């Protein structure tokens, strides 16, 4: 079982950072919310819509950026954004306004006519993110959104996250970059072997753990990770 007794409730307009070691179950959680996995027990709801019972309504509200950004390699960047817009029912008039804007924002205009197979990892990540934002989702699931991005694009993505949350969009972000979680998130959740071991703001976590340490140290204390000091002698 990948997840055990997990209960999460994220508020509208909240930036929630989901942390955990590799294989803890973060991506599985995101997939449950996005309707890519069916829970063996329990349920996942987005904006009040149970993802299993009302998948279309839930998916309309969701924007999902997966940990492995995907775009069809034989489509151009522009064609891929058009496809994403059509799948989410964005009107042609809206696409005419939004797509050039998004391409410009992510510095992809010059390469919009090239096939995706020629894009670097970072460019694919930016294109996938642009496609996720095109239909103005109310809930964003971002699985490792900053991987592969150059500093300028990473800054842009962080600004986008904050701005969208300010407009009431809920952001559920899985990340291993703990500094980003500490800086941006209203609350953090820490998952360890499928179990939620912390779910509060960084300030509240410090209080509970009676420490002034930063989030990285608290994370390592909670999940283990300090015991390798002996092993380092091998190097």
């Amino acid at each position, binding site marked *: 079982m990948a997840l055990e007794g997990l209960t999460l409730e994220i508020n509208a307009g909240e930036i929630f950072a989901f942390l955990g070691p590799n294989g803890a179950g973060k991506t599985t959680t995101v997939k449950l919310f996005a309707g890519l996995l069916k829970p063996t027990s329990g349920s996942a709801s987005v904006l009040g819509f149970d993802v299993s019972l009302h998948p279309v309504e839930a*998916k309309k509200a969701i924007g999902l950026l997966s940990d492995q950004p995907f775009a069809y390699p034989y*489509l151009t960047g522009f064609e891929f954004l*058009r496809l994403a817009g*059509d*799948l989410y029912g964005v009107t042609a008039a809206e696409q005419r306004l939004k797509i050039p804007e998004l391409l410009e924002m992510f510095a992809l205009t010059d390469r919009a*006519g090239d096939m995706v197979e020629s894009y670097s990892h970072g460019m694919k990540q930016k294109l996938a993110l642009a496609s996720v934002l095109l239909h103005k989702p109310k809930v964003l699931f971002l699985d490792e959104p900053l991987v592969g991005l150059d500093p300028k694009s990473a800054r842009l993505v962080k600004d986008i996250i904050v701005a969208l949350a300010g407009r009431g969009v809920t952001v559920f972000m899985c990340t291993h970059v703990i500094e980003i979680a500490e800086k941006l998130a209203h609350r953090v959740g820490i998952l360890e072997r499928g179990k939620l071991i912390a779910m509060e703001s960084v300030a509240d976590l410090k209080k509970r753990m009676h420490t002034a340490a930063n989030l990285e140290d608290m994370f390592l204390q909670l999940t283990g990770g300090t015991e390798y000091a002996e092993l380092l002698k091998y190097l």
Partner: protein
Amino acid sequence: MIRMVLAHFAMFRNRVDRLDVAGQFKIAFLTLVALFFLAGIYAGCWRLVSYINGVAVIGPLLVNKLLGLVFLTSFSMVVMSGLITSFTTIFSSEDLPWLIEKPIPIEKIFILKALATCLYSSWMVILLLSPLLLALGQVKQAPLSFYPFSIIIITPFLFIASSLGIMGSAVLMRFLPSRRTRDILLLCGILLVTALYVLFRLLEPERLVRLDGLEVVAQYLAYLNAPTAVYLPSWWVAAALFSFLTNAAGDTFFYAALLYGAGLVIFIIVVLLAKRYYYHGWSEGRVYNRVSSPARFSFNARSPLRAIIEKDGITFLRDAAQWSQLLLLASLVVVYIFSIYKLPLDTLYLQNLVAFLNIGLIGFIMAAVALRFIFPSVSLEGMGISLLRASPVSMAAVLGGKLFFGLVPLAGFGILMAVSSCMLLKADMYMVILSLAAVGVMAVGLGCLAAGFGAMFPVFSTANVARIESSGGGLFFIITALAYIGLSLGLWAAPVQDFYRHKFGAQGFASGYGWWVAGGLVLINLLVTVVPLRLGYRSLEERQL
């Protein structure tokens, strides 16, 4: 290098060890089907070889000629297969970056990948040659040592053939490393195979066993006595086997030495080429030559279904590996029509009998086309399936798009073949209409079956169509499709029988079960359309991604 080979064995063992009950059942089932298939080929080969061998005076010469032609065909197939496979195994295999960054001499990596290429490019030929050689040994009452000798002699033959393909790809990658160039080369290769195939058929090889086709018997005998491409290893292997069967030890040793000697020389050349060109070709092939083209922004309104169909169309046209197969399909049609044209049909009865059997043959060809083009369409989504599932679009639209994209050309192709073959056969108008109806209905049935099975048994982990269609699901599809074609043909036979009974003066409906036949046709067509599509849709909606 031995460690890498052992690692591949370990990977294979781990996969076998971790097979669940369904996996074990699948392997057992596939093995059984493969054994039946091989037994069928063996029976066919035995019949053919014993028949030809029994022809008075020239029998053994004919067998010799046949074997020479079989090895020549195998040789060209393996060379071409080695050329195409090596692009994937030697130049774009996923583990190459990992291997190349290790402190291993580059030629060792090349040799490892080249050996894998030899195996991948020749296993099918080995599988098809085995029953033929077994039948040859049986007919010629060869000693038991003939079989291990065959293995010893065929190994360098296949090695030479695939190495020639690898040499070709190594040189091409050195001078033309970009992907677009390789696409063009792939197209040229397919054009060449297509042209050879059509040419071979147009030469009417059946004349070989029809003495009246050649004016002078002496000319015929001279033709039979002449070796088939004496400088090619295909002739050496055939000659070595025949020398062995006729106890000509000197010739046997000579041809065996020739094969092993040539194999060694080619191996040395391949390694030298690898040392010189491999790394350069591999690294150049990984660089994308950026030629940015300005985006043409067009914002026509599209439904999700239309967007998916257009996406599939664009992908199909831009992926040379997919659309180039249409050329092979075109050659298949030409050869089929030519074969119908050349059939010696002297009577009205024969013309109409062939016109009826033609429905089944077209059905069989359509099943093969559906397996190649419709069955893999869901699998080819790869990671894109997560993107579609996460969107608010129903999987019914996705499956419907795939079906529509494949069904329209499939039905058009079937109807074109039916019309042209009926015209060549000068069949009755009744038979023409019945053929069109049967082929049209079968196209819909086979299209739905292929789309549904493709969704039920997808292979998202590869973009290789050959691997997708040879999966368990592909095999299951083709077996079901053949059963469907057989049943359909059996049911369509009733109205044909009635028509000819009336035509030749009989009264009433001889079959007397018209409604049952109609009901049967409706039932089996509902079964192959609704059930697979429904199950495929559910599988896509509920699959854990």
